[in-house]
């Protein structure tokens, strides 16, 4: 296929292990939490680069977020991505998955012709896995989720999907939206050569609401159907009893207690 054009949606997320809430304000403590490229988006980028190496392609990465989100684009440039689009505007803030997908799909349309849109299956912050299918929805494209292999041939892709109880092979004509799981590949490391070319800023385009020709009333928190009412840390059950004694005694009293509550 000539002039294959691939778009990868990538998101900057806080590293999950360090996230905590502020019990007073019920909000996330983001301070000091490093932003990382969402793990499965790295797999999506790798999948795009593999297709590029095999078939030739132009790979554009797209991200929406605060200006710092541009960091993830620098990172994917260093992996070998050709172009990046940063969507940043105060008006985008607070967008839920529906509005995020709307904004991303507007940007994709503005960026011109494309054959394949790749997303991570889910982002580790909200873990919704909704943005990929919703981009497909706004653009009226076929979608294939849970991809663990993508093979391109003559304008069609064959995708192996990893489902709960089976693997499924599906075939779809491009253009299409595919969301990938971490099983699809092992992402490459950024290369020094790419880092140098990435640094001059020539690969990056930044767009705001004006560029996308959408009024602010259709964007951000106010336009989003869903609202986060509250966030909190899960409360675990209260501590049960520690069974005392040596191994023999512990085993004996455990068995007795399990019999007492009728589980054995």
């Amino acid at each position, binding site marked *: 296929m000539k002039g294959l054009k691939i778009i990868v949606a990538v998101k900057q997320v806080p590293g*999950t292990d360090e996230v905590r809430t502020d019990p007073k304000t019920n909000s996330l403590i983001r301070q000091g939490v490093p932003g990382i490229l969402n793990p499965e988006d790295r797999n999506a980028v790798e999948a795009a680069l593999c297709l590029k190496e095999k078939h030739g392609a132009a790979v554009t990465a797209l991200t929406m977020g605060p200006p710092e989100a541009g960091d993830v684009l620098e990172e994917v440039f260093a992996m070998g991505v050709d172009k990046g689009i940063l969507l940043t505007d105060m008006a985008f803030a607070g967008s839920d998955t529906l509005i995020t997908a709307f904004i991303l799909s507007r940007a994709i349309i503005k960026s011109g012709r494309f054959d394949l849109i790749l997303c991570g299956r889910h982002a580790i912050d909200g*873990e919704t896995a*909704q943005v990929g*299918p919703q981009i497909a929805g706004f653009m009226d494209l076929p979608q294939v989720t849970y991809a663990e292999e993508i093979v391109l041939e003559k304008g069609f892709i064959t995708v192996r999907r990893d489902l709960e109880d089976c693997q499924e092979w599906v075939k779809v004509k491009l253009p299409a939206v595919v969301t990938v799981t971490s099983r699809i590949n092992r992402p490459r490391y950024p290369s020094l050569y790419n880092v140098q070319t990435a640094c001059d800023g020539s690969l990056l385009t930044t767009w705001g609401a004006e560029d996308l020709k959408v009024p602010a009333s259709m964007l951000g928190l106010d336009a989003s159907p869903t609202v986060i009412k509250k966030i909190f840390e899960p409360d675990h059950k209260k501590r049960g*009893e520690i069974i005392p004694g040596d*191994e*023999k005694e512990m*085993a004996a009293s455990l068995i007795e207690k399990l019999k007492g509550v009728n589980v054995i």
Partner: protein
Amino acid sequence: MITLIPENCNACRQCTYACLYGGIVLEGKTPVRTDSCTGCDACIDICKTGAIVSSGQNIRLGHDIAEYKGVWVIAEQRQGHILPVALELLGKARELADIRETGVTAVLLGDGVDKSGDLLIKHGADRVFIASAPFLGSYRTSPFVRIISGVIKEHRPEIVLFGATAMGRDLAPRLANSLRTGLTADCTQLEMSADDGVLLQTKPAFGGNIMAAITAANHRPQMATVRPGVMQPVCSPSRKGDTVFLDVREEHSDTIVSILKTVKKKQSRATLEKADIIISGGRGLGDSKGFKLLKDLAAVFSGQIGASRAAVDMGLIDHDHQVGQTGRTVRPCLYIACGISGAVQHLAGMQSSDIIVAINKDPKAPIFQVADFGLVGDLNRIIPEIIEQLK
């Protein structure tokens, strides 16, 4: 609701950009309203030439909240068998519907599922919509979205629930898109506010470190995918209800994505979710010798084997046995965690088990925070002792 005055149009296309929904298109130089128009009137604000004006009525889909009634469950089946999560959802749907004094509807698509209405009714449905046809035998996004959004648009339910399965999480976002409403993914808790019908949907985020409570107060239907294994099914064999068969036909667009083949995986996962007793092991097992102990323990309890991610990463056991955020959610009567520290991501998958036993040599391990019975010590010595005494 909009009225179009084509003479005023200068084909600037601003309306097509402004519309979230593809509700307005330009045919030549004439603006045309499509079926997707929700009557949100956004294009009126953007039109500077007066080609689009308000006709006074607002029919914004999803906004006449009072018109939306009933709690719906999209029931998933495989090879004609209803999945347990569908029955769990019906249990919850019944509870929500009773609070709102309204009915429960189940929607079932598949092949040869004509007779499945009964099971859904016994588990809480008042009405079941069934679409049964060969082309619906395997789930494909397009026909399912087309058919289900059709019935939803016609009957306007207040709430629609899906299992957070591969199918549910492929289908629901696409439907939310076509209905332009909110969707909360992978909920573990649903609470209804009786007077205004707002559904508080709680879901884990950030690897289970954080819970988020989400509402979509101004949109209908309110939609959520719900994690399998967290809601309780309720069966009353004498319940009565209606089954309505939908007349469906395959359309060309349904075949955009074609399924070439499917290969079944080993069935170990499914049995884990149904198990009454799970004996789970983590990094503390050390190696395959420790793992052998775990197997022996499982044998005397007639339990299934579960594992932490560390045990899976060490190659002791297949990923299908992993319990937790990125594994299975289980809820057995008895869960024995051996050499598992109790990271939030692991707890996310097992903390609603009835009785939790933890065996760990570190008295400060977080697993003891959720355990009903804690045994502090070396599992290599404790487990053989338990096996010995139970024999």
